[in-house]
């Protein structure tokens, strides 16, 4: 436990005391440092900064990520989210002994991530080779009010000596992506006349420039005490904003720092913008770094919080993942979306997957509709990329990228070349066609829940129609007179080159039906816009009738006589052994079974057919929800982080409480307990959204219906109260479920 004594050392901001509102690391372990850096990320949707120590060392994997700042990978040429210089870097010298990046084992080390106030705290003591002990305490946050702004406060206290200390508020001149590649080149840096430094970087392809302004000011003691010097330095030293003074034993010295970040992607005047931010901040007396932080966060949490009384572990994880979702989306930028590992890590190159629409979007639609709108508008702005992909595959309409970056063009690597020169082909970019319907589903979900007519008129209908026409062009008319979707891959990635995947076929049919329904609505309510849209996308009445015909003839595998909906054609002919029967101990079967052998079994990597019951709760009563869950769950290997939350949600709805809680715990601990062993690479964004869905759609049983909102709670006996808010057609609806006896209210 962090004791009161320790926390009493903190000045200014004090962390929220409620344990479910904060994440606390006690101690220090270099081998867990990358995990902690991910967990303690601060951000605001425009940028994210990993919780890397202020003193960068060999144990550090520092990273600031700016949404949408991609540069080509040096090997594949595909866009890769650039790792930007660590903006909170500080270099310390005591009596000219440079603490730089020395290997030091900090004592009394703890970190606190205050989820409620959006501030990360860190405390540590360093003893140098002369026996001098210095306590450091830092606070950092990313502003919501001005998304370019980062704030940092640092306290320095010499514990057993008096002497000269210098703090260099450094902006490093280099930054490296994993594997050592540098995607940014420093163009230069300068000391600013009014104080601080301005550093300029450019992506290696020279498409974008990044500007980082930094200014630190002492805010304790006598101003005459401190000597200041700033210089631009070079790529090796970075830009230096240094304060030196003669420190007295036991005294605490506090500095505040503002960092402003801008790129040529979002502004034509990044340099002036950054300098203006610094001047405005320094002009306040005294500069209060954290002035707007709590108010902004209070507004976010008022709507987005989920209160769960009776289970503090799940409550803490819920807030942790909600925090990470809130710092991943930017309501003011329609040209970016959320990468698979948010802005907290660089796995999957910052690319956007179906995770956004299927797992995260429901949270944003329900609690932050402006953020949800920006995410869906990203899909609208990248529609041309999806059109290009469709043409490349000999199809019509829009075939969304399995991995999407800036333009919406497909950026999934075609293959991975291993060190032994083995070439591993990556099929997903070609075969996981369901992404297209997933995007359409997101657009429809957003419209249905918010009633945002402007969106559906100006963007949503076009997405729906272009994705609908893709399906018709992708399908093949069989001898049986039905349309079949052949040679694809469902969400279950263990089986490839399959046909008539139940999930994909259903989603495709749904996509076309809803597209036609949306077109009807537009024709009825805005006939001129409907005509203009059809002209724009060159869709005539014949094609519309073809689409109407398509939905009546797409192959459906729902056979009540079968043990379940057949996941794909021929699935039931495979070895029907369960995961347990095949001997999974811990870790996916794909590790222990040969890939070819695995494909001969019915074992699936993650929820596939069952996902239909998550996305379409109305199917539950008519298509054998329980029958399907009972069949597929024992055959699911959970080789993907997407699998646990879906199973938690569905098991909760079915009243399989024990099972639901098991999957919920795995979901909640995915990053905090490092369940998958790869938290170091960034927050699992889909899991964050999946946990929220499991609690709200699963345990509370919330549904959006045409008649409004309904709940059907399945509360575990130890849960006392569940309360949350959701927007519905612009109105904030509060839902409260209490237990023992079970009661609920929709206000």
């Amino acid at each position, binding site marked *: 436990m962090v004791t009161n004594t320790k926390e009493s050392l903190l000045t200014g901001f004090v962390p929220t005391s409620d344990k*479910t509102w904060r994440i606390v690391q006690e101690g220090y372990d270099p081998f867990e440092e990358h995990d902690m850096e991910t967990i303690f990320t601060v951000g605001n949707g425009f940028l994210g900064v990993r919780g890397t120590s202020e003193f960068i060392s060999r144990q550090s994997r520092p990273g600031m990520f700016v949404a949408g700042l991609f540069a080509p990978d040096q090997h594949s040429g595909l866009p890769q989210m650039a790792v930007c210089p660590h903006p909170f870097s500080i270099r310390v010298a005591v009596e000219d002994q440079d603490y730089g990046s020395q290997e030091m084992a900090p004592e009394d080390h703890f970190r606190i991530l205050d989820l409620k106030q959006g501030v990360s705290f860190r405390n540590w003591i360093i003893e140098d080779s002369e026996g001098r002990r210095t306590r450091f305490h830092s606070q950092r946050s990313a502003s919501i009010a001005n998304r370019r702004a980062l704030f940092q406060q640092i306290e320095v206290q010499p514990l057993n000596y008096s002497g000269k200390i210098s703090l260099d508020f450094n902006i490093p001149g280099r930054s490296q992506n994993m594997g050592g590649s540098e995607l940014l080149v420093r163009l230069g840096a300068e000391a600013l006349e009014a104080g601080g430094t301005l550093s300029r970087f450019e992506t290696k392809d020279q498409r974008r420039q990044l500007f980082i302004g930094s200014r630190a000011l002492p805010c304790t003691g006598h101003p005459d005490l401190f000597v200041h010097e700033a210089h631009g330095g070079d790529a090796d030293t970075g830009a230096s904003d240094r304060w030196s003074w003669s420190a007295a034993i036991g005294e605490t010295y506090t500095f505040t720092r503002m960092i402003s970040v801008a790129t040529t992607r979002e502004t034509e005047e990044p340099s002036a913008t950054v300098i203006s931010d610094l001047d405005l901040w320094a002009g306040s007396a005294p500069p209060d770094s954290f002035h707007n932080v709590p108010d902004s966060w209070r507004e976010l949490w008022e709507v987005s919080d989920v209160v769960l009384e009776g289970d503090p572990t799940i409550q803490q994880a819920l807030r942790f993942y909600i925090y990470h979702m809130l710092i991943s989306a930017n309501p003011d930028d329609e040209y970016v979306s959320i990468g698979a590992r948010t802005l907290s890590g660089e796995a999957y190159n910052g690319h956007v997957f179906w995770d956004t629409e299927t797992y995260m979007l429901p949270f944003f639609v329900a609690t932050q509709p402006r953020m949800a709108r920006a995410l869906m508008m990203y899909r609208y702005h990248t529609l041309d990329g999806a059109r290009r992909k469709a043409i490349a595959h000999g199809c019509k309409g829009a075939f969304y990228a399995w991995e999407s970056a800036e333009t919406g063009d497909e950026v999934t690597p075609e293959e991975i070349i291993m060190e032994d020169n083995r070439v591993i082909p990556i099929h997903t970019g070609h075969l996981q066609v369901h992404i297209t319907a997933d995007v359409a589903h997101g657009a429809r979900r957003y419209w249905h829940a918010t009633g945002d007519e402007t969106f559906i008129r100006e963007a949503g209908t076009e997405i729906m129609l272009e994705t609908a026409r893709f399906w018709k062009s992708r399908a093949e008319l069989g001898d049986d007179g039905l349309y079949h979707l052949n040679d694809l891959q469902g969400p279950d990635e263990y089986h490839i080159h399959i046909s008539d995947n139940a999930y994909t076929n259903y989603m495709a049919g749904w996509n076309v039906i809803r597209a036609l329904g949306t077109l009807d609505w537009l024709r009825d309510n805005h006939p001129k816009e409907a005509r203009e849209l059809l002209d724009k996308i060159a869709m005539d009445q014949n094609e519309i009738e073809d689409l109407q015909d398509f939905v009546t003839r797409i192959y459906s595998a729902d056979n009540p006589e079968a043990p379940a909906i057949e996941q794909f054609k021929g699935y039931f002919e495979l070895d029907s052994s369960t995961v347990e029967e095949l001997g999974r101990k811990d870790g*996916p079967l794909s590790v222990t079974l040969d890939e070819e052998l695995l494909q001969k079994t019915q074992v699936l990597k993650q929820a596939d057919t069952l996902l239909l019951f998550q996305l379409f709760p109305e199917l539950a009563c008519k298509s054998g929800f329980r029958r399907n869950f009972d069949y597929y769950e024992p055959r699911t290997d959970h080789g993907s982080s997407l699998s646990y939350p879906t199973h938690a949600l569905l098991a909760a709805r079915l009243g399989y409480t024990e099972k639901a809680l098991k999957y919920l715990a795995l979901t909640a601990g995915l990053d905090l307990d*490092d369940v998958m062993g790869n938290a170091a690479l960034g927050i699992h964004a889909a899991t964050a959204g999946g946990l929220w869905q499991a609690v709200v759609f699963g345990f509370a049983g919330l549904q959006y219906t045409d008649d409004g909102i309904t709940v059907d709670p399945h509360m575990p006996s130890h849960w006392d109260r569940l309360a949350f808010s959701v927007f519905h057609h612009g109105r904030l609806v509060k839902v409260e479920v209490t237990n023992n006896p079970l009661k609920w209210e929709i206000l």
Partner: protein
Amino acid sequence: MNATKKCLLLPLDGSENSLKALAPAMALSKALFQTLHIIHVSDSQLPHDELITKLGLPKRGIAGSTIDSVIGDPVEEILRRAEEVEYVVMATKGQGGCQGKMAGSVAEQILHRSTANVLVIPPRAAGFEKISRVVVPLDGTPSASDAMPAAFAIAQATGASISIIHIPPVRSTKREDLEPGSLFVEGMLDESEGIGDIKNEFLDRFVRHHENYGPDVPVTLEVGIGHPSQVIIDTVRNLDADLIVAGWHGTLEIGHAQTLKSLVCQATKPLLAIRVGARKFHSKLVSAA
């Protein structure tokens, strides 16, 4: 390991088998610029010429080495001198061991009780005169990676490359029971695209952060699935490696150090056993419960 004692100890008992350790000891001594101390422990002090003859050493001696005849108990005397060196080099006989116990009782006791790094020449192993490739098995625990500094030191001195073979454990334990900071590449094997990322993380966490890591030593990482000692032996054979460098916890009791025991019996190349210390760092996330 005590880095301040830059020398090697080669105990020889006069047998043909023990002499198998001479070539690797000389090669290592030359590469690391360390003095080679050869000792023979017996009931009586032997004159130099007689000692040379008994041990089968060249009459002209060995450059950069010392040779001593010592009276006393072999295990105790070797252990006493092992306190002064960085490496002990010993060939094992393969008697009896390999069926539950380890080969060669003296070697076993030195391995068990000495804090020095022990270079073991297993019965089936040929020695080496040069080192081109070093295989380091890592199971994904931080403590196993304590073998890396010794591997780097040898690779840097010899110009060798390092091939890491990661053998994730077949786990029935819960994650919270594992050593903190552990990382297993297996978790991402099914996600082909993620292999590069997790391998990089593995290398960063267990390899690149060591103080004597340098990009001048080529390092590759492979993942092996199966019985650890067999995977290591297969890897050494496939890569035509010269040396295995492996960390171990220093306990040879039944149920412990199974991989090390198997390698000492069955490896076809010399094995440098690095005794890893207790974890120095501790960190935890505080539960809200």
